């Protein structure tokens, strides 16, 4: 038998419907579905708070994140220093804020670039097939199967630590997934009749592929962008934590976490690593919730 709560919900809807209280608004169904998903909305809120905080860092914190102040080393959180100070007296709060800028920029930026490259090649390859597609497929397989760590070590040993290195590596290892995703979408889209209609008019291949079909392939790609962003941020944190990522003088969330390699800091000075760890987790969770929400709302089989 139906659960009582479900029955009650139905009764309520039926009552409203019969009294003409429910009107179908010509709303965007996607938006509606997304907003109904409480976790996704929570994710969106947290995501926005953190991003805005990093953007408005100068307004939120008077301290220079790089300024060393040996007189106030290792201070616990106080009204002066909300997250306390670190080993060399730098304000942890502003380091987290400014560090967020770099981490998010690297994560989001490389994710977007990877998506751009993946879409550009995947759309054309998926639509036309032929040798372009076959070659791209093989190349993407090579890149995706390459372990990131080896690549990073390689590049770092050749050119040293830098932000650009990370960008390059993330894009090189990330475009393959985007490429396969958009290619798969194109394979099914090219059988759609509106595509054949465009072909029957003799519209050029480029126009059909990039102007008409690409917007329909964006759905899953957008979801993947959010999820890749989260993954890249975590990876950057990991790499910087190991000292392989961004050089130590540029604050990033991973760099800040680096202090936790010292057992003394880990045990006694929790404010130097715990807040930044929590911020990373919250941000990644928020992005994941948004990604899940996007995926659910673009999936036509989910009942609203």
């Amino acid at each position, binding site marked *: 038998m*139906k659960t009582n709560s479900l029955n009650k919900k139905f009764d309520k809807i039926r009552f409203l419907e019969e009294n003409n209280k*429910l009107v179908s608004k010509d709303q965007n169904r996607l938006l509606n579905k997304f907003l109904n998903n409480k976790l996704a909305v929570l994710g969106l809120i947290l995501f926005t708070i953190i991003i805005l905080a990093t953007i408005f860092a100068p307004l939120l914190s008077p301290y220079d994140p790089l300024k060393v102040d040996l007189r106030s080393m290792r201070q616990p959180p106080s009204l002066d220093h909300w997250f306390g100070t670190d080993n060399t007296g730098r304000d942890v709060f502003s380091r987290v804020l400014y560090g967020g800028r770099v981490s998010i920029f690297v994560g989001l930026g490389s994710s977007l670039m990877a998506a751009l490259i993946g879409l550009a090649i995947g759309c054309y390859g998926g639509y036309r097939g032929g040798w372009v597609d076959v070659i791209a497929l093989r190349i993407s397989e090579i890149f995706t199967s390459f372990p990131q760590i080896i690549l990073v070590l390689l590049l770092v040993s050749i050119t040293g630590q830098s932000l650009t290195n990370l960008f390059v590596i993330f894009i090189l290892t990330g475009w393959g997934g985007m490429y396969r995703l958009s290619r798969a979408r194109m394979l099914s889209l090219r059988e759609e009749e509106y595509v054949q209609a465009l072909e029957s008019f003799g519209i050029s291949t480029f126009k059909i592929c990039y102007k008409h079909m690409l917007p329909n392939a964006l759905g899953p790609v957008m979801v993947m962008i959010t999820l890749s962003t989260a993954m890249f941020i975590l990876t950057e944190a990991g790499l910087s934590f190991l000292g392989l990522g961004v050089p130590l003088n540029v604050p990033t969330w991973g760099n800040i976490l680096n202090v936790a390699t010292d057992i003394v800091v880990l045990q006694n000075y929790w404010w130097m690593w715990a807040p930044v760890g929590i911020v990373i987790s919250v941000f990644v969770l928020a992005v994941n919730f948004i990604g899940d929400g996007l995926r659910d709302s673009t999936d036509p089989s989910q*009942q609203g």
Partner: protein
Amino acid sequence: MENNKNIALSVKDLKTYFYTNNRCNKAVNGVSFDIEKGKTLCVVGESGCGKSVTASTIMQLLPTLSRIEEGEITFYKDDEKINIEKLERNGQKMREIRGSDIAMIFQDPMTALNPVFTVGFQIAENLKYHTNMNKKEIREKTISLLDDMGIPLPEQRVDEYPHSYSGGMRQRAMIAMAMACNPKILIADEPTTALDVTIQAQIFELMDNLKKNYNTAIMLITHDMGVVAELADNVAVMYMGNIVESGTADDVLRRPTHPYTKALLDSVPVLGRGRNQDIQPIKGSTPDPYDRPVGCQFAPRCSFADNTCEVMPEITNISSSHDVRCHKYKEIFQY
């Protein structure tokens, strides 16, 4: 139709409402009919009229966000009277009935069979669950079922997978699966719509034989008036959740009394009537289920409607077998 001995299933004032997207869709809004043993009842209507939902309701195969609001579904099993609407959806009693007493076949044979199991396995599952036969008996019965349904070389075919069957054969396999436990009622939801015309003809022949040989009561859902003319003993015409006209095939096809039935028959080219037949499309289109007209649902598209049609008409008995739901039928159709 009060002779209970001949009735296999009786539906009274059935209402099934859907609650998706936080709206209430009255998909089936007061439907009554009887399915007689050894006869075919054709439920005809276009998309959105609620015919498939009626079938799903009888089988209690509705999605989660829906429920049976009101009404009775009475299954006359041997000497028992079972109220299906009172049974738990996936309770033991309902699952016993489903598949062995009431069976259903679906529209698309391509997707109705599981591609990773052999056809024989899928038919055997039905027998395993509902009967006490042992493995050997089940295999023999499966092969004889495939043979009865006209599948050549059944001893070989029983171990093959659905992808090696053609569309027509898959439909036969589905019918074999449905008939495995000799159900009293067979519900067929547009069983030939996805098939070629020459294969349709084969399936019609098969279903006719089922009626004669097994005395099965068949409820056939379709949108094709031609199928109705070929197969139906009784007809129920549905529109937007109500039955607007019902009766024997003779009643409804020769003396259509509801404006919708008449309009439907007049809007379809009929083979044999040549190039100069007068095809009249029905003006307008089916209303949005969330934005229904008040009263008779067909009124906005009906050439005979007036103010009285703002009240939902009751069912009138034109003859002992023929019912219609219309205020104006007396003025329009003189037979």
